[in-house]
């Protein structure tokens, strides 16, 4: 299973080469991978639906108890099949749709990575692994939305999607950690058996809210729904794949997956049911107000996502079975419709429903696919969408909760408006007065028709013969989500009941709405005014606020003066040490022992002090530098006295090089002036004395206290046998503690880069730029 997930990542770097070899058929070739994966998951169908989930477990980071564990049960299988099958069609479609685009290979790479990440999300058993893949889908989706990266609008919308989903991802990660904590395991397969423990825990409410935030942002639930229509800046194949069939369903997947672990409470029902119902009604309303083809489809996707969230929130057996049917139905018809939208754009260049009409005669196959898919969207007999909608209505009508009538009302309203949306999509571009075009459009190439035809056809086939999947795949998925076994056959005809009558009424109302579509849009103009106060405005306010905050903070903290940086760093150090000592007063053990100080040691110490005082008080820079040099060489002398030749040599050399560098800088500084007032200088002196005094006290205290045995004996005894070296200092540097040294030389390299950059940046501003003399 791991190979299956990783295969997408492995193929991704090869995709550009493949495209160069077979530019015309690259899409077909790349589609072989998702097609093969579809076959693989298809072969798991019987074992999984009959014998239960398939688990694999590979140690990844054993030290953190983080295994790469995967689980394939009914729910994962349903999602994996959709991801791979629709993915294969998308590759074929994209290969033709973007045939002339110079960045097509990049699209392939990103799509493959995205597909692999998405498979990782739906197959992971470990919460952390799931989260990693979850973020990967956000990142790949960001790159895909911003595919036309030279378009500023596309970039802005991509960033919006990224910030919303990754912001939710932060909440999700916190939620996952809390969930792993209160559930006692990070494995989903364990967590779903501990629902009672988790829901009874005092932290349950917080955990749920955090996880739901992650799922809601990903699945574009109110009030985060605004990013999804904006993500339509992506090329159409991407919209068809990510923003209808797969990525936005990741949140739905997560909620369905966690239902046995966290569902069944009042909070779950209100949060998911409430947000879902609002999203559903709002989405369909905005869909009917939109005229852009992709925009309308995007809002109707928002409606579908809301419906699914609501159904999972309702959480009954009927509701979850309805959710699975609705999920499948939606992926089939929405994938088809997006590809149809792409065909309209590709063949006629029109992107708005108002500019279309009467093209059924030119694009007969496309219009047939669009019609079938739109019928499924409207929930009309005998399409699979009909079965899904019947179940949806029953789930609302048969729910026992006090608020159930409200949910039912929302479902009925959404159903009626949904029919009108479907009618616009299925009728407007194809019939009526032909919209004027400069050329007569021709039917799309087979590679672009394959996807919509297969998906729309499957919607019809499953509607006519639901027995193909009802007892196996859908029941297994619903069982996994419910936490107990469900086997419920689906049927196209249930006899005349309330749900059917409501369906009929919805179709009638929807058709009337379609007849007066322009009127409806005219009388709902207030919605545009209202949206000025909507969540998207809040998003913009938030982003502006963030920029303003960081501006202010930069002005406050980044003065650009070295002395202020130094003062704040040093005072922070003092504060931390004082706080640590305050909490831990016993740690300070001052037992200074001055008895065996030799005279020459005292002389060196005196020279040190005098040189330091001179460095501080001298009026010339050169004098100060020389005094500092005296300090350094005195310290080197101390090292020699205490038998540390390596340290001493290093100290001498560093002093020498420092003087050389100072000399190079010194002549380019302005004349020495005393600009500071006495008060400032006194304050500076106080800071210096405080820090110096603190370090002295600390060092004396360190000498006086020893918690563990000294490690020196180990180094001395092991240096020759283990390190093959008699110079202990060097053996420590390059062998025992080589990792520290490695870190230090990286710091050195960074420092050199910094100095180099500053020098070069500065000279760029100069008019008299010195010419590069080397090479």
């Amino acid at each position: 299973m791991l190979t299956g997930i990783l295969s997408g990542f492995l193929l991704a770097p090869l995709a550009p080469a493949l495209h160069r070899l077979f530019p015309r058929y690259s899409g077909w070739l790349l589609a072989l991978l998702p097609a093969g994966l579809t076959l693989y998951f298809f072969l798991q169908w019987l074992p999984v639906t009959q014998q239960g989930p398939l688990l694999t477990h590979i140690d990844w980071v054993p030290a953190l108890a983080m295994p790469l564990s995967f689980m394939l049960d009914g729910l994962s299988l349903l999602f994996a099949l959709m991801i791979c099958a629709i993915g294969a069609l998308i590759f074929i479609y994209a290969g033709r749709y973007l045939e002339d685009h110079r960045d097509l290979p990049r699209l392939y790479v990103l799509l493959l990575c995205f597909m692999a990440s998405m498979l990782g999300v739906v197959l992971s058993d470990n919460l952390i692994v799931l989260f990693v893949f979850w973020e990967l889908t956000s990142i790949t989706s960001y790159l895909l939305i911003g595919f036309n990266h030279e378009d500023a609008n596309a970039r802005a919308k991509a960033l919006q999607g990224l910030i919303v989903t990754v912001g939710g991802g932060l909440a999700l990660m916190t939620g996952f950690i809390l969930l792993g904590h209160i559930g006692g395991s990070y494995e989903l397969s364990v967590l779903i058996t501990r629902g009672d423990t988790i829901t009874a825990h005092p932290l349950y409410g917080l955990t749920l809210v955090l996880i739901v935030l992650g799922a809601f942002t990903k699945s574009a639930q109110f009030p985060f729904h605004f990013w999804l229509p904006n993500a339509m800046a992506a090329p159409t194949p991407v919209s068809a794949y990510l923003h209808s069939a797969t990525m936005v369903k990741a949140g739905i997947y997560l909620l369905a997956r966690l239902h046995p672990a966290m569902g069944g409470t009042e909070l779950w029902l209100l949060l998911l049911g409430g947000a879902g119902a609002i999203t559903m009604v709002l989405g369909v309303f905005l869909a009917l107000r939109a005229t852009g083809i992709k925009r309308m489809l995007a809002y109707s996707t928002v409606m579908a996502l809301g419906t699914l969230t609501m159904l999972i929130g309702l959480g009954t057996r009927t509701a979850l079975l309805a959710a699975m049917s609705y999920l499948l139905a939606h992926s089939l018809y929405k994938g088809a419709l997006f590809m149809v939208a792409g065909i309209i754009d590709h063949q006629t260049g029109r992107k708005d429903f108002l500019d279309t009409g009467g093209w059924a005669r030119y694009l007969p196959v496309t219009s047939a696919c669009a019609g079938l898919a739109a019928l499924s969207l409207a929930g009309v007999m005998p399409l699979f969408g009909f079965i899904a909608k019947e179940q949806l209505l029953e789930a609302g009508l048969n729910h026992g909760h006090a608020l159930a009538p409200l949910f039912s009302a929302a479902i009925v309203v959404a159903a009626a408006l949904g029919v009108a949306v479907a009618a616009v999509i299925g009728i407007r571009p194809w019939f009526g007065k032909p919209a004027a075009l400069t050329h007569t459009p021709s039917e799309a190439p087979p590679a672009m028709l394959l996807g919509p035809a297969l998906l729309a056809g499957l919607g019809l086939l499953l509607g006519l013969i639901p027995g193909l999947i009802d007892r196996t795949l859908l029941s297994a998925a619903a069982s996994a989500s419910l936490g107990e076994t469900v086997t419920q056959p689906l049927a196209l005809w249930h006899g005349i009941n309330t749900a059917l009558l409501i369906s009929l009424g919805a179709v009638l109302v929807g058709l009337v709405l379609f007849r007066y579509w322009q009127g409806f849009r005219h009388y709902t103009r207030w919605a545009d005014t209202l949206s000025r106060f909507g969540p998207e405005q809040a998003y913009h306010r938030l982003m502006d606020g963030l920029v303003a905050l960081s501006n202010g903070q930069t002005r406050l903290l980044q003065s650009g003066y070295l002395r202020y940086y130094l003062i704040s760093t040093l005072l922070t150090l003092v504060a931390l040490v004082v706080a640590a000592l305050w909490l831990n007063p016993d740690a300070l053990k001052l037992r200074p022992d001055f008895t065996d100080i030799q005279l020459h040691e005292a002389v060196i110490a005196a020279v040190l002090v005098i040189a330091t005082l001179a460095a501080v008080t001298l009026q010339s820079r050169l004098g100060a530098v020389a005094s500092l040099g005296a300090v350094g060489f005195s310290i080197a002398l101390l090292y020699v006295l205490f038998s540390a030749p390596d340290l001493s040599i290093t100290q001498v050399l560093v002093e020498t090089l420092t003087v050389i560098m100072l000399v190079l800088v010194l002549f380019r500084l302005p004349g020495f002036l005393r600009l500071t007032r006495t008060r400032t200088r006194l304050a500076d002196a106080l800071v210096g004395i405080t820090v110096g005094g603190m370090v002295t006290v600390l060092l004396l205290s360190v000498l006086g206290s020893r918690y563990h045995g000294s490690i020196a004996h180990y180094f001395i005894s092991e240096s020759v046998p283990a390190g093959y070296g008699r110079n202990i200092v060097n053996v420590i540097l390059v062998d025992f503690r080589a990792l520290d040294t490695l870190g230090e030389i990286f710091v050195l390299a960074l420092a050199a880069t910094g100095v180099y950059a500053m020098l070069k940046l500065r000279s760029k501003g100069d008019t008299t730029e010195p010419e590069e003399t080397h090479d």
Partner: protein
Amino acid sequence: MTRERRIPPPDRNALRTQSLILRTTGFFLLPLLLLFALFLLLRGHNAPGGGFIAGLVASAAIAVHLFAMSEAGARRVLRVDPRDLIAWGLILALAAGVIGLFSGQPFLTAHWLTVSLPVFGELKLGSPLLFDLGVFLVVLGTASTIIINLAEQDT
């Protein structure tokens, strides 16, 4: 082509002193200091020395040469851009660490190889030596990058 090597005449663009004494000593000091740096580097495992110190000595040699001759002369001694030395040093140090990984041991585990040479006798070559060479190059690269670029700002 004459094989005679002479003390180079003062560089026209060199900003520093035209002192003959400095140029003469600089000319002789450079090879001596570089040899000394190599000596420190190689003996470092058993006696005071090592990559860090050797790198500082070599940087001092470059600095002396720079003051005695010119920035261009200092660059010619190094032959490559000092920035490249930093990169190569980091790569060598990392490579020394990776050797351990390939034999299934933790990163940076030392590995030793004893070579018998006719003249030198037994010679122990180990990944710590490679690591020390990396440290040497990084230190030399860092110090010379800063010194040479600072000096070039003056003109």
